[in-house]
Structures are given as C-alpha cells and as structure tokens.
C-alpha cells in the first residue's frame, strides 16, 4: 500500500531521511557533537515510543517510565563493573529485569485509574530512584562510569560512534514497527478498547486487566532496551536518569509529538531536544520560553505536532 502524499507523511519521510543522513553530515562538517546529540534523540525517541504504547494507545499515563531507562542502564553498568562485558549476557538480562519490574509495578498499579495510577507509578519510580542512590558499591548518586561498552565479539563494535548510531536508529524503527503491528492486532484492539471504555469491555466479555498488564510489560521492556543503549552511549549511568523529572520529560515528548500516533513520539523527541538545545543557547532560562510553547501546543493542537500536521491535508 502506498502511503498517501499528505503533509504529515512528507514530514515523517523527510525526518527519517534526515536521521539516516546525520552521520554523513557529521562526517562532512567534522562535528561529533551533532552525532552525539542525535544518538541521544534516537534513544529517547525509543523510550517515548514505548511510553506512547501504554499512554497513547492504552490510556495508562505512567509517571515513572524513566525508571526503565535506569534499570536497563544499571544492568549494563553493574555487569560491566563486575567484569561481565558480553552484550549477549548484558542485553537479555537487562530486558528480563525491566520486564520483571514492569510486571510487578503493573500488577499493583493497574488496579487503580487516573490520578491514582499516575501517583502510584511515580511512587514506584521514586523507590527505584532511591535504590540507585543507595547503591554505594556502584557509585551511589555520583553514578557509575562504564569503561567498556557491551561487547558483541566480531558481530558489531559499539565503540564506533557511527555504527552505534545506526544500531540505535534501526532499533528505534524496529520498535515503531512493533508498536504498529501491536496496535493493529487483536491485542491492540483490546488495549484501545480498554482505554476508550473499560466498563463496556467487561460487558462484552473482555478480562482487560491481563491485556493492559501485558502491554505495560512490553512498554517497560522496550524502554529498558533504550536504557541499555543510553548507558552505552554516555558510558555512564547514574540515578539522575531515573529522576521523576526525566519521566515528566518523556510524557512531554509524547504529548508534544502526538499521543496515540505512531511517529508522534519521534517527532516530539526531536522537537523537544532540538528546542532545548536551541533555546538553552539563547538563554539560561530557556524553560521560560519552552513552557508557554508547550502550553500552546497542548491547548491549540490536541493531537500534538503530529495532529497539527495531519489536520492540514495537501490532497
């Protein structure tokens, strides 16, 4: 099926093209900072994409999603510190731990709704944050330097910045593809039904809790993978990654780009980090400009930037 030539599709296509060309651009101008910035954007876009799965499609507004960034990162960091460098061990273990923690958090918090759900996910994330702070062996709140990135033998060398960037980009696109498959499957219909009207779902015969919990675990696992990438990118992990304001940033990225839209989180993350970069270059108090801008998007474009783009059709 050929995607229609709408403004939104053109923008998404151009954005993807740009992301593919970033290393080329960075090489031409000989500026590593651009590559580093965009690696960060791509990784956080992956985290935002996973948050969008539960928040945008599932109606589960988690205010503790950054916890999984830390969990994925700490598994890599701690294993590396203890001398286990193999990515074949580090990565699956990081995903497993993320999934298990998401399962426990989901099991307890998905019994609540609305503001209570927001608060309880925040509380869990804070608990995990303080666990990170108390890890004296692993740097406590100063964090832990990761001296060697995950080793994959001859398969792939993560220390090569261009290779690492493309790996992140491929994994981001794979997550977006996964979310696309999920939300259109029977599972996805059940998830969206539960967001739209949970009472009706029960009346027509759906035990929605198990589907919502599964969705919560999938999102936590994808975000855990983003955490693995982030730790490898910064060669460092600290509790700051899990601070509640980081969870807030992820929510802002999703809302800014467009909740319940496939490419919304990517658009939102690019917009968020680009604005942050640009505005903080103008003034130290960049949030004074960023805040009202965000407010305007939320008030006047309820579907975020993606909704704004989709509203203006070219055909």
């Amino acid at each position: 099926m050929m995607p229609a030539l709408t403004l939104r599709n053109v923008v998404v296509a151009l954005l993807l093209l740009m992301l593919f060309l970033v290393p080329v651009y960075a090489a031409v101008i000989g500026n590593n900072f651009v590559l580093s910035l965009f690696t960060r954007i791509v990784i956080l876009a992956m985290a935002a994409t996973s948050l969008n799965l539960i928040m945008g499609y599932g109606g589960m507004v988690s205010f503790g999603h950054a916890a999984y960034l830390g969990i994925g990162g700490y598994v890599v960091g701690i294993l590396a510190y203890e001398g286990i460098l193999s990515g074949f061990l580090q990565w699956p273990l990081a995903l497993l731990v993320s999934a298990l923690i998401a399962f426990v958090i989901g099991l307890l918090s998905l019994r609540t709704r609305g503001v209570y759900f927001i608060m309880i996910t925040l509380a869990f994330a804070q608990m995990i944050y303080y666990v990170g702070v108390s890890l004296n062996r692993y740097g406590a709140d100063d964090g832990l330097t990761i001296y060697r990135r995950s080793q994959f033998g001859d398969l792939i060398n993560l220390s090569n910045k261009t290779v690492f960037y493309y790996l992140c980009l491929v994994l981001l696109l794979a997550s977006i593809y996964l979310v696309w498959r999920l939300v259109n499957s029977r599972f996805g219909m059940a998830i969206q039904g539960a967001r739209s009207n949970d009472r009706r779902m029960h009346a027509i015969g759906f035990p929605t809790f198990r589907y919502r919990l599964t969705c919560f675990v999938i999102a936590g696992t994808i975000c855990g993978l983003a955490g693995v990438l982030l730790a490898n990118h910064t060669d460092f992990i600290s509790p700051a990654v899990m601070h509640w304001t980081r969870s807030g940033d992820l929510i802002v990225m999703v809302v800014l780009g467009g909740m319940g839209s496939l490419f919304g989180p990517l658009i939102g993350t690019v917009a968020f980090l680009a604005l942050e970069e640009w505005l903080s270059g103008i003034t130290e108090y960049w949030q004074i400009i960023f805040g009202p801008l965000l407010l305007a998007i939320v008030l006047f474009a309820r579907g975020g930037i993606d909704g704004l783009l989709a509203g203006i059709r070219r055909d």
Partner: protein
Amino acid sequence: MTDALLRVDGLTKRFGGVIASEGVALEVANGELHAIIGPNGAGKTTLIGQLTGEIAPDSGRVHFAGQDITTLPTYRRSAIGMARSFQITSLFLDMTVLDNVALAVQAHSGHSFRFWTPARSETRLREPARAALARVGLGDRENVVVRDMSHGEHRQIEIAMALATRPRLLLLDEPMAGMGPEESARLVNLLRELKKEYTILLIEHDMEAVFALADRISVLVYGRVIATGAPATIRVNPEVIQAYLGEQQVAGHG
C-alpha cells in the same frame, strides 16, 4: 418454572441505609420476553448491576442456565451468554461503528493475545460484526466514527454489540431512553423480531412498548417485586395501579 434461563432468588442489596433490592425473586423462562417496570428509584439499575456482575449482592443467588453465577465476574457472564445494553450509551466513541461491534465479536472468538495479524483484516471478526449491524439497520454506516453519530444510532449500536456476542439472554436496559416516537416505533419492531430468537429481559420506561412486547412483566417498587404476570393481569392489578401506574391509567392503552 423448570426451564428458567435466568433465576434470581432473594437478591438483597443495601447502600448504607437505603435498600435498593430487597429479596428480589425473578424467573426468565427460555424464549420469553420478560419486562421489568418500576418508578424511578425502584432499584432497576441496581438489579441489572447485580445481574451483570458489576454490583455484588449482600445476599441471594443468581442462576443462569442452571449455573450459579452470583460471584462470576462480568466478563465471564458475557462468555456464557449474557449480553447487555446500557441505559446510558456506553460505546467506544473514538472508534468506527464496525470496530465497536467487531470488538464484541473478538471477545467471543478466543483470547486476544494475538500480537501480529491486523485485526481489521480478519473476516471472521468483521463479517459477524457486519451482520449484527445489518440486523439493527446500520449496515451502511460501518465506517462512521461513533462520536459523530446521532443518539438514536448510538442506541442501535448498543443492541448490535449485544447481538454480536451471540448471547442466550439479552439484558436490555432502557433501550428506548431518549428516543423520539418514530425511532422508538422502529426499535419496537426490531425487538419484536429479536424476540423470536432470543430470551430477553427488558427494563423499560416506555409503557406502550412494554405492554406491546412483553410476555410477562415484573413490577419493581422500592426494591421489591410486588407483582409478576401477563400484561393483562398486571394492567388490572390494584397494587400495581396504586404503587406505580396510578394516574398514568395504563389500563386505557388498549
């Protein structure tokens, strides 16, 4: 009655000092259309809540098809053949009509831990949903987003969703609520057709519709069933006339 599909015994529910159901006994026979009438505050909503499993009774039992379902969760009741419509429209407003009804089909077509195949291209979800929509007269509206439709159409979707679960018993909670006379008349015709295939428990305010459709009527007042019987006997029951019908003079309807 031995072939009762739904049997309710001594159902009691209190909310603080208010008795919403007091020893409610009710039998819905296979194949009948049983109506429940009662003034506002009679406990109709609480009763249907207990039948669907959304409200747990303080005491009493609910049997469905010979099985004690008193503590069965709502979704399991749907699985064994109880379907309901809501008094206040309760749909997936942000989805299309067909997606709404297809979800009802999906609920009864195995588990939904299927993560890969697009659900909208599954014929065995879409075709039964289309059939249910055609049944209620919405066959040509399948791709409209529910939010954009009229109240009358919402009421029709309510029934289509109940039908799509292939129920043995239809619990219709005031299906005519808020409908104009013309829409109501059309719905009465539809119910008359459905009556031939389904056992129906109808809770309804529209007296004309109830007396035209029901095989038997139970009258609920202050949480108690004060009378059950054929429309002709209910119409002349002095207690009913006094407690509920009063000045409405239902006896005059025909």
